[in-house]
């Protein structure tokens, strides 16, 4: 007997399903953001919510990011479980005081007297030809702050399961959705399932090198591994899935096994996620590494508009193949 074919859907559909199912499950959940109701969101991720749950729980807001997050924090402190959509992660900077100084710190400053169960969904990533103010990947900013969790799904299955976990979490969670992946297809398991925050996923096993790649960087990572495999280099590909908390153990164990590690993330190269992961892997696996951990982030320039220029700033499968070969040389 063969297993039934798994249902195939997009990341957009997976997130949309998670929102619908969670809002049906818990009346304390509501969602607000710019154009998320009538319009269904600029990326159509929230389509259908307004019709099912009505304007109290699906709130179109003014264009006022600090105010939106500020209200969500107050609501979260007093019994609600708000989900906020900030259209582009670039615009989270407008709410960064609320995220960094209020949401992240209230639990600790009050010695546990209150909690802030808040999810901030936001679109990240370059490649959309949207130029420097609509293309950034600011996950490192928020992973830097104690009290926040940062989630970066790469597949439909993960997006749905991780978003459900984020919504059920009692802490503020930044949920980064790569805008170029909303149409990414993959299997979506049936039924209610969650994926724990802080657990990496090994997408491909190998013994010769490890590629640790976040969010949409999984796909150039897998493509590079495939090409390298044809040349006899067996590469392990791991997606941390959440960078705060970070599954150090899985990453370090792979480094110990392969001895060669490359970290790929779409945030800026300098002071980025790649630097933190490289440091943790080197601290945990130093004696087993054949060379320093290499890293590949977005170029340290504001994301340019011209497609020919923008493509030069984003990590690519070609570049990953080059680096792995350099390491193995």
């Amino acid at each position: 007997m063969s297993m039934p074919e798994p249902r195939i859907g997009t990341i957009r559909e997976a997130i949309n399903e998670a929102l619908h199912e969670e809002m049906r499950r818990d009346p304390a959940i509501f969602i607000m953001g710019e154009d998320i109701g009538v319009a269904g969101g600029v990326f159509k991720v929230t389509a259908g919510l307004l019709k099912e749950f009505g304007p109290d729980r699906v709130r179109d807001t003014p264009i006022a990011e600090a105010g939106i997050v500020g209200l969500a924090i107050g609501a979260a402190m007093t019994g609600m479980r708000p989900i906020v959509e900030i259209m582009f992660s670039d615009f989270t900077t407008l709410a960064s005081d609320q995220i960094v100084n209020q949401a992240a710190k209230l639990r600790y400053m009050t010695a546990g007297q209150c909690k802030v169960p808040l999810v901030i969904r936001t679109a990240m990533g370059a490649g959309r030809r949207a130029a420097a103010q609509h293309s950034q990947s600011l996950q490192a900013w928020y992973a830097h702050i104690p009290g926040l969790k940062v989630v970066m799904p790469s597949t439909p299955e993960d997006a749905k399961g991780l978003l459900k976990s984020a919504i059920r979490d009692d802490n503020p969670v930044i949920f980064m959705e790569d805008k170029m992946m909303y149409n990414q297809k993959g299997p979506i398991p049936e039924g209610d399932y969650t994926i724990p925050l802080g657990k990496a996923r090994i997408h491909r096993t190998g013994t010769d090198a490890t590629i640790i790649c976040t969010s949409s960087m999984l796909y150039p990572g897998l493509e590079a591994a495939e090409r390298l495999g044809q040349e006899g280099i067996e590469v392990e590909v791991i997606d941390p899935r959440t960078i705060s908390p970070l599954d150090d153990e899985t990453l370090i164990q792979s480094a110990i096994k392969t001895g060669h590690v490359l970290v790929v993330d779409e945030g800026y190269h300098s002071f980025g996620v790649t630097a933190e992961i490289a440091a943790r892997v080197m601290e945990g696996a130093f004696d087993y590494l054949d060379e320093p951990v290499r890293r590949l982030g977005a170029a340290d320039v504001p994301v340019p508009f011209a497609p020919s220029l923008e493509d030069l700033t984003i990590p690519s499968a070609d570049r990953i193949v080059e680096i792995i070969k350099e390491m193995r040389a």
Partner: protein
Amino acid sequence: MTTQSQISPPSLHHADLPVELYLDMYRRMVTIRKFEETVYDVYSRGIMPGLAHLYTGMEAVAVGICMTLRPHDNITSTHRGHGHLLAKGGDPRRMFAELLGKASGYNKGKGGSMHIVDMSLGILGANGVVGGGLGIATGAALSAKLRGEDCISVAFFGDGALNEGLFYEVANMASVWGLPVVYVMENNHYGEYTPPSKVTAGTGPARAEAMNIPAKTVDGNDVLAVYEAALWATEHARSGGGPAFVECQTYRWRGHHMGDQGDTYGYRTQAEIEEWMKKCPIERLRRYLTSEKIVPAETLQQIDTETQSLIDEAVEFAKQAPYPDPSEVFKDVYA
């Protein structure tokens, strides 16, 4: 300290208010005054770490507003928050312990003067960021509306916070969505060391009215005037009318913080301070209650004595309390 001729008469004569209410008002104001002046003393002797922003002289605002709130109504406070917390029922012992960084403090010593919270009293926090409580208070009002709970929010903020953009973002949403929140602007005439006349165009009430939020300005040193405005504003919010705005004109006797004494920053004169001290809100209520023969002077003196004992005991409790266990440093980062 003051003479009757220097104190303008109360704007209102609430002859029919119960005596107990007057006594409650008086007791809460004296509690704040004695608490703050004790902080001044303790801080000056080097016992208290960190920063202290004192509420001395502004007592009528916190008390006049909080007298109209119920235990489950929510407030957010400011960096100058001790007065709001005490007026809402905060425990002076746990507050003082927090100021000294002790384990028995409201926040186990992890917040300090600017971050005290008591969720059970609807105190959603003092806040170290100017205007920082405005979003939280407005969000709590949204929460109450969504949950169908009969509960309002009050956001205290200063003339300095009036120029923070967050106010306009959240007050606009409160107005559009009809949220039950009252914005109480404490105009103490200085944002840190700068007067509104130099940095603020127009007025708070006019800005609120531009967002269809009804507003009043009152003498913030007249607790009865504040109380009456608070009754209006809270009733407006409770009855589904949406947000309201009250500007209370007042003055802080002490500096912006404990380091702002004498002529350190050179932004105000001793004569100006003394002129405002003549408008002491506590003295003003005392004169009114005794001259109108609502309460005998001895009753008020007894309250003074009892309150002093309460504060003395709070300080002693705080001094004796243990410091937090070192393990506390890593607790409660996450829920």
